[in-house]
């Protein structure tokens, strides 16, 4: 619990700041970016799960329910990545001193990759752990 609380505290402390002028400030911003990426990945996964649950089982020769759930799972990913990028570029980047911009962009890129990997890995794990639920449609078994 303590391990999770510390970076959250750091992140929250940072969000209140107006400017990032020193490498130390940037390290804090990067940490908060990574934490935010993880939180967004989890929240998006939760949203995908809820939305997938709302897609009814479809009977028939060519049911589309599984495809719809996969579209929800994969479709949310570019949306949140775009949102994450917009937030970082529009809200955080202007606060960062120009000499630290390149490093901040690196942080953002790592954060995006982290979000992407976390989302897919957790989604895959969840889908395989619950194969007989609607989440199983995200990564169906091969026939």
């Amino acid at each position, binding site marked *: 619990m303590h391990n999770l609380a510390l970076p959250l505290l750091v992140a929250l402390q940072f969000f209140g700041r107006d400017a990032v002028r020193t490498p130390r400030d940037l390290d804090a911003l990067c940490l908060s970016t990574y934490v935010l990426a993880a939180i967004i990945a989890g929240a998006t996964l939760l949203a995908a799960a809820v939305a997938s649950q709302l897609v009814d089982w479809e009977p028939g*020769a060519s049911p589309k329910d599984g495809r719809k759930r996969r579209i929800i799972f994969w479709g949310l990913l570019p949306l949140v990545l775009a949102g994450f990028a917009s937030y970082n570029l529009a809200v955080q980047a202007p606060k960062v001193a120009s000499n630290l911009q390149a490093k901040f962009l690196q942080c953002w890129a790592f954060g995006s990759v982290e979000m992407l990997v976390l989302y897919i890995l957790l989604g895959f794990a969840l889908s395989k752990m619950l194969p007989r639920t609607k989440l199983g449609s995200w990564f169906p078994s091969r026939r």
Partner: protein
Amino acid sequence: MAEKYFVVGIGGTGMRCIEAFTHLCAIGMFDNHEISMLSIDTDTNNGNKGRTEQLIDRYVRIKGGDAGTPTAQSFFTAKLKLYKFAPIYSDDTLTYRRISRLSEGSKEARARNEDLSVLLFDDNVQEFALDHGYRAQTHLGSHLMYHAILDAARKVRDGQGQVGDKDLMAFINQIYDAKDEARVFILGSIFGGTGASAIPIIPKALQDALRLRDPNHALSDKARFGCSLLTDYFKFNDPTGPQLKDQKIIADSNNFARNSQAALMFYDADETVQHTYERMYHVGWPSRVDWSTDTGGGATVTGGGEQKNPAHVAEFLCACAAHDFFHGEHAPEQNERALIVYRSADREGNSFSFGFGDFVGKAFQQALKARLTSLFAMAHMVTSLEGSAINSVKKFEENNVKDYVNLTPDEARDLDAYFRAFAYALEDGKVRKGWLFQLQESVGGPFLYDVDAFSTDPRQLKGLNFGTLLDDEGHQFARKKFLGGSKPYEEFMDTILKDTSMQPRPEQKVQRLNERYLAHCFNAFQKLYNFRS
């Protein structure tokens, strides 16, 4: 040794009765039993006979043919074996005169035979073509049916028997082998021709055929015989003048009530009937459904492929009479005379308000309610929603229930076809009524289930909430909620996928893949409808 069940369906109505009996088996009302069925009809091309035999053949394939085994607490639990016997009436056996060879022999013998024949049968009766049955001439029918059965035994004994003759003798041998445990139920009408002719003579004919083949063999005197006494419940076009002139004898449905009365009086008085039958189930219907067909000139359809009448609830009652005879806890009657039994149902307005107990009695009403409802829901789901059992299996597979992936297209097709025959089919955007729908139609009022379940609008059927088939809220699921609609398929799939206790259980004894699939669905429906004990 367990009791062995035998069912004999005779004539057009008898065929529809064994059709109903087969559906009763598909519903799952005969757990752990092998049932031998014999169809007897003189009209070999009869549409009802063809439909029923096709249905039983399909049932047998679903059960795996000869290698199949009885199962329990599922659909299609009884193992059926069908035997077919049809006296051939054509060419030199087309009429009574030709069969009896009245024009052969010495002059004196011919005269004697003529005198005897005239004494028993009118000229027209002697000369009408028998290939469409006995046409309500029961006195002739009884004589010829008895003769046909013994003739078949003789031919088999002499190594000349046709397939039907061998089938008949195999069936009789099965009864012989069952010894004291044989329970034989005979289904047919008593107002028409073939059924009414055969019911009085069948037990004796089977016994005599066995003795003819081997004088040392006899059916056990503890073998029990029962039958339905189905009185008139339908009518059809009156024969036209030219038709009557051409065909000499045509069954006239205006005489059916009198025929019924005469048959009942005969059965009541006849010693053979009274001694051979233990129980006779008197089944009747208060009105006559009109099965007139448009033949162009308004003529009567005497038989053949055109005679494909819809199912009627009276036939289902006969099938349920067989169920009662086989399952009834009554001890063998000690009476010298056959016991005639009946059951009545409540009426509301102009129609019966049937409950499940009206068909199978209190002891089995819950079983019928649970299993018939489940099979109806299953048939609806496969026909209207999945389109085919194979799609259902694919749906399971997609969601990691892979137990049935090897179900073959042929096995799936048999299930699809059976469900269509049982409930309804969708053809060219229309609903073609199957057996259960025809039963509902014949009642002429509410029938066991929500009236929407018998809609003839395919779109309405597609949107049917099969979770609320029954009025009884204690046996409903997927009821409409305050916010949001009802989703029975959703609940069915969730139950199949998430509840592992729905898997076939050992006591269900299901071995074949299609049986396991059916048992899995059966278990899910039993749980959803709250019928699990």
